[in-house]
Each structure stands twice: as C-alpha cells, then as structure tokens.
C-alpha cells in the first residue's frame, strides 16, 4: 500500500522532471512568456533550507527525506542545522540571501520574530516556503506557503475512528486521553479535533485527561494512575505513539490486555508504534508524517514555473489499521 504510493509519487516526479527539462530545451522564449517567473532549469536552481535541529527521531527522518528528495529531483540544496536556536536560523537565512539562492525553505524554531529577516528576503526577491511549523506574522506576503501537518485534522481522524468503532454502543464508553506537552500546538489542536469528532455520540465520554509530555515515561505514569482512579476504562487516546507505548506497559502491569480489554488509538506512526499496532496492542494510528520532501519539491517546481500555490498545503497523511501496519512496517523509514 505505502510502497505503491511511494512508487507512484516517484514516477510522477520523474514525469514532471522530463517535462521540465523538455521545456528548458526550448530556451528563453518560455522564460519571457510566463510573465517574470524565473523558470530556470531544475539543475540550475538553488534552494536554501534552514532546519530546526535534530531534536527527535521524527526530525531526523524529516531532514533525511528532504535531502533525499532534492537529490532525486536534481535540485541543489544548501542545508543548515540551527540546533534549536532562532539566531542560528536567522543567520542561515541571511547567508542564503547573500548567496542569492532561488528559494528559501525553513521550519521556524519559534513562531515570533521573523518579520525583519523575511522582509530582507522579500526585498531580495527570494520566495520563502515554511515547512512543518508556522510563523505568526500578520503580513501573509512574507511567505509563499506553509506546508505542514494539520493537527486538528489528526485529532479528528482519531475521533472519527472511535465514533465508527462504537457506533452501536448502548452504554457509556469511558475514554481517557493522554495529552501532549501542555500549551504546545499539537496538544491543543489534537484535543480539540478529537473532542469535536466524538461530540455527536453522547455515549462517548472522556472521563480523564492528563498530560504525558509526549514521552513514554509520562504516558506510563499517567496511565498507571488512571487505571487505579477510574473504575472502568474502555479506550485510550494517546496524542503520540510514545505515550501510547507507555500506556501499553501500564495496562499490561495491571493484568489487562492492551488492544482488547482497553483499546488504544495514537497519532504519529513511528516504527515502534507501528510494531505495536501490528502486534494488536494498539488498534489504530493516525499518521503525522515527517516525509514532506516530495511536496516541498512540488512547491518549488510550481513557483519556478510561475504557477500559483496555496497559502496552506497540508502534508499527505494517512491512517493505519493493524493489517495496513503489517504491510507498511518492513519499509518504514523512521
């Protein structure tokens, strides 16, 4: 399933590539016709990418996918690692402006404080693409698009599955929620998306909700306490795989069977989570994919050809059941 998607994307990419080089073979005329769009040959393009750092496995997979995608597409990539510091990222972006790259892409470390450097890029005529994280700038002309996951939709997908799963339930279904780091965008958005999706069925009730800080240890401790303070738990919604994996251990220690006595839904789909899903310990996973390299290439190509792009592009993401996890697991990259 996943393999075919990748193969399809790759072949689509190859097609686009040949089409573009075909266009470049008839010089100058097309460049002038598309109304000031650069429309350079792909191998002449230079894109500067300023990454957040290497703070998690998710991020490492994100970096690797972007680098690989650029290599496959034959576009030159200048890459910098900001080590989670905004000043490093601003320095990197300034140096890209001085080098006169064609496009700048970056995942902002924090949301605020970007107007100055983004205005410099705008003045230099270099389009900016945001990946994975947004900036809270009022001036939407400072960047072309924001390419990343929709956390609300992720929570909603999880909630939809729960609703479908218990649509015939006649008694109350007790759900406990393991939230991400308090105040973080994914935690807030996934909670609201989930609550929205289950509110149609009065039998579905979130009886307890606590933060497990997105970590295994956190998920385990919270779940241990829930198992003792809640008389009956039917379902766990963990806002990432790691907390779900922690919850599995707590449930097993309490002498119950995860996935059967207590059902588990998580978000992320990292390798360990997928393993637990195919073992039947997790029932459903909503993907939050770091693999946005191909979509980034797509945006660069569209901008290069002078085609307009949407202000907001959502990462292509799917959901997994146990069978789909079994099929996808052998070539899971992260």
């Amino acid at each position, binding site marked *: 399933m996943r393999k075919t998607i990748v193969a399809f994307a790759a072949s689509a990419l190859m097609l686009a590539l040949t089409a573009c080089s075909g266009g470049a073979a008839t010089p100058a005329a097309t460049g002038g016709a598309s109304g000031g769009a650069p429309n350079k040959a792909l191998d002449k393009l230079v894109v500067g990418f300023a990454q957040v750092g290497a703070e998690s496995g998710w991020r490492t997979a994100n970096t690797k996918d972007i680098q690989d995608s650029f290599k496959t597409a034959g576009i030159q990539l200048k890459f910098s690692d900001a080590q989670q510091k905004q000043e490093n990222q601003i320095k990197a972006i300034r140096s890209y402006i001085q080098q006169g790259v064609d496009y700048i892409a970056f995942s902002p470390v924090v949301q605020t404080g970007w107007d100055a450097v983004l205005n410099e890029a705008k003045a230099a005529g270099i389009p900016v693409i945001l990946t994975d994280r947004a900036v809270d700038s009022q001036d939407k002309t400072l960047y072309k698009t924001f390419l990343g996951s929709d956390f609300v939709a992720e929570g909603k997908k999880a909630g939809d599955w729960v609703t479908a799963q218990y649509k015939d339930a006649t008694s109350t279904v007790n759900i406990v929620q393991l939230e991400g780091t308090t105040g973080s965008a994914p935690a807030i958005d996934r909670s609201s998306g989930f609550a929205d999706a289950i509110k149609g069925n009065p039998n579905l009730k979130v009886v*307890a909700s606590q*933060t497990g800080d997105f970590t295994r*240890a956190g998920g*385990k401790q919270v779940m241990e306490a829930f198992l003792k*303070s809640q008389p009956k738990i039917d379902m766990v919604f963990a806002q990432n795989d*790691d907390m779900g994996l922690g919850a599995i251990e707590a449930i097993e220690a309490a*002498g119950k069977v995860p996935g059967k006595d207590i059902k588990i839904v998580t978000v992320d789909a990292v390798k360990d989570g997928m393993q637990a899903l195919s073992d039947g310990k997790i029932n459903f996973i909503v993907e939050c994919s770091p693999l946005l390299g191909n979509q980034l290439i797509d945006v660069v190509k569209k901008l290069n050809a002078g085609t307009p792009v949407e202000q907001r592009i959502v990462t292509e993401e799917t959901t997994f059941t146990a069978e789909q996890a079994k099929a996808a697991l052998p070539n899971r990259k992260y």
Partner: protein
Amino acid sequence: MKNVLNRAVGHRLFWPLVMLAALLLINVIAVPGFLSITVNSEGHLFGSIIDILRNGAPTLIIAVGMTLVIATRGIDLSVGSVCAIAGAVASSMILASPTPNNVGTVTGALLTALVLSLGLGLANGLLVAGLGIQPIISTLILMTAGRGIAMLITEGQIITVNSVPFAFLGSGFILGVPVATVAGVLIFALAALLTRRTAMGLLIEAVGINPEASRQAGVRARGLKFSVYALCALLAGIAGLILTSNQTAADANNTGLFIELDAILAVVIGGTSLAGGRYSLAGTLVGALIIQTLVTTVYTVGIPPIATMVFKAAVVTAVCLLQSPTTAAALERWRSRLATRHLQGVAAKAGAAR
C-alpha cells in the same frame, strides 16, 4: 502531654510529614480505595501506594546522593544528564549484542554504564575539589554536555530495548515488591549506615559548615568532596538505568529531564539547608515521597494539566513556609499574643463581674 505535642511540632520532620499525610488524605477523599494494596494473579503487590514507591525510587536514589553533596556546601546539576548517559550506554550495548536476553550480557551492560557514571562523577569531583571551581558551574558543564553525549550515543533516536532481564530492573518484582523500590530502600539504608554509624557523616557536615576550620582540624576535605560527587553520579547512573528500564527505551532527550530539580527539592523539603552542614537523610526520604505523591495526586484527583504547575508550586511553597524559622517565630508570636489577649479578656470579664 502538651510537652510531647510541643516537641513533635518542633521536630523538623513534623510539617513535611503533615503535608504527606494531607496529600494522601486528598487522594483518599477523591478515590476511596486509594490506600488499598492487593496481590494480583502473579503474586505482585498492586496499588497506587506501590506506584508511588516504585516511581519515586529514582528520585529518592538521586536525592540521597544530592543530600551528601549539598551537605558539603555543594550542588550537582548534572545528575539528569548522567541518567540519560547511563541509560543510553546500557541500551545501545544490549541492542548491539546478539543475545539481548542473556543475563550476562545485561549485567555487562549495566556494569559498564555504572563505571562510566562513576567516571563522570570523578570528573565533577576533579573540577570541584581538585581545581576549586564552584560546584554549580562545574556540574553545569556536564549537565549541558551530558545530554549531547547521550544523543550521540543514541544517534538522536529513541532506542527501544526488548530484553527480559533488563526490563526486570524497572518493572520486575522481588517477593512481590517492585525491584526499583527494593533498590531505593537498600541504597537509602546503606547510605544511612555508612554516614551515621561511622564518623563519615560528621566529617561531611564539618566540611560543609566550615571547610577551612575542618581542614585545619585534619579533615581531608578534598577527598571527601571527591567521594560525594563520585557517589552522587554513581547513584544517578543507577536511577537512570531504572528509568530507562521502566520505559523499555533510552530517550536521550527526556530521561531524567529536570530530575536534578526534583532531587534538590526533596533535599530541601527534608530540612537540609542549601548552605551546607547539617543534613537529614530521613528528611530527604520524606521529601522524595512528597514529590512523587504530588505527581500521583495530580493524576488521581484529575487536576487539569494547565493548573498542574500552580498546584505543585502551592504545595511546595506551603511546605517551605511551614518550615522556615521566620514563619515559625511569627506563628509562635501570634499564638502567644492570642493567649495574652485571651487572658486579658478573662481578666477584664472577671473585673467587670466584680
């Protein structure tokens, strides 16, 4: 009778113990079965109290080491990073071995991690005792660099370890009691015996109270400081292994994150002064239990996550205020003023009656 009560209130562990009892009471009100401990089908003890004792063990183990360091007028901020390194080393060794379920493999990995932790402690000791750099600066170096080292070992990934003997450390049981709890109790007892049944505790306090005077009196302050930092890091290594084993994964970013603050807090709640000198291991034990009970209370009672920090801060502030000598004196004055006013009232009434 009143004398006994006064002496109990005056004891330095009185208010921390009251706080612990109050926290437990809140839980019992919220969940009536909170204190119940059952034996499950596998013969393991099961209940919220057991969770507190197990999850609190790593903090207690580190806090024991921290107590001795603080008693010498020092502090060790690097314990959290040492936790992460110990976990990362042991996990990657077990993962690299062809026989992850072999007891020998696991023992080897654990010993390597502990020797390394001890080495890191000696490095701290060298900076503090050997070179005379301020403890907060010396250990800050390892605190910052240590997580980087752990990240390098795990290559930035969360390493999952599937090894039965390794999992035993964090989630196994000995005679029904969690292994982590047994380890915590043993370490606490050993430290208490070593420092209170020998002159070592006295010497540590002497170094903390007045390093120069104790040196002139013939106390080998330098060697003592070396050993407390080494011991603290070794204990941090043990705690790190328990934490890593409990979550069956080495997480360089999060294992032992902020545990140095919890440990320092446990020591302070227990009545040991950060200025060094007199210390109380029993106080540290109560402090560690309060911190873990606080965490469990938040989950059991269902305090909303956004209010969690405020709730914790309120409890800690209350404990510190109750223990402060200034507050104690103010309370005493208030009580005696009340008593005087009461007496005056009685006298006035008596006068009016006459």
